[in-house]
């Protein structure tokens, strides 16, 4: 079973890397860019076939390690295939 965790900065945390990408794109002449956000995605292969169990386990991984709740929000998807 495969899971996908998407981690974003919370609103209000200014992401210097996203800002730099936006600036660089403008510098290259891509004027139509109005906003850039980065998402850190972590894909996991899991040893289980139970979507519920997988989801619960990955949620716990987020709480314990993958995301820092002070600055980040994480969302978990379970991809049936894989």
């Amino acid at each position, binding site marked *: 079973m495969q899971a996908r965790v998407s981690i974003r900065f919370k609103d*209000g*945390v*200014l*992401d*210097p*890397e996203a800002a*730099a990408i936006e600036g660089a794109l403008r510098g290259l002449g891509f004027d139509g860019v109005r906003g850039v956000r980065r998402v850190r995605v972590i894909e996991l292969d899991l040893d289980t076939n139970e979507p519920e169990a997988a989801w619960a386990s990955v949620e716990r991984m987020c709480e*314990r*390690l*993958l995301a*820092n709740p*002070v*600055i980040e929000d994480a969302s978990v998807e379970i991809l049936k295939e894989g």
Partner: protein
Amino acid sequence: MRACVVTFPGSNCDRDLAVAFERVLGVRVDRVWHKRTRLDRYDLIGIPGGFSYGDHLRPGAIAARSPVMQEVVRQANDGALVLGPCNGFQILTEAGLLPGALIRNRGLAFVCRRVDLVVEGTDSPYTRGLERGRTLRLPIAHHDGGYVVDDEGLRRLEGEGRIALRYKDNPNGSTADIAGVLGGPRNNVLGLMPHPERAIEPLLGGVDGRALLAPLLAA
């Protein structure tokens, strides 16, 4: 005084910090491996700089979950002195001992230079005896030193006098120029991006690091 410095995989200022404790405080320093689950009671615990776990995931994130940190948190809450420069600061925030988080420098590049810092919170074992407003010159060397804390958290830090140091000329985009933060029941935990352990002798270009370490003898 009983002192130790913890080594995580990828720590690289552990020796420097131990040497500074020895030189400035005249103590013998135990070196502690991150897999230890029980520690003797220490008066002073150093969480060193470096790149624990290669800064992977988030700087300090993986180290903060290593077995030894539960013990460090326990002793910190008991009042033990815990000093974390640089990666140590990142680890202490990730472990929840200090509020806020550290993200990529505003300029995106690694920055290694000496910076001027202003002493602010003087009610701590580290800064007691230092004059509020005094300037310290210490080296920084980091890629992820941008201190982030929300408005509420900032108000609380300011209200409680727990901002130990601010940058004179903000090198990394830290909120409110914050360079070092105090925590623990008696402000016994200090996390800071600068490296006091690199400024303890004239030959290294300065001795201002002693100003933060020497007061610990009286703590």
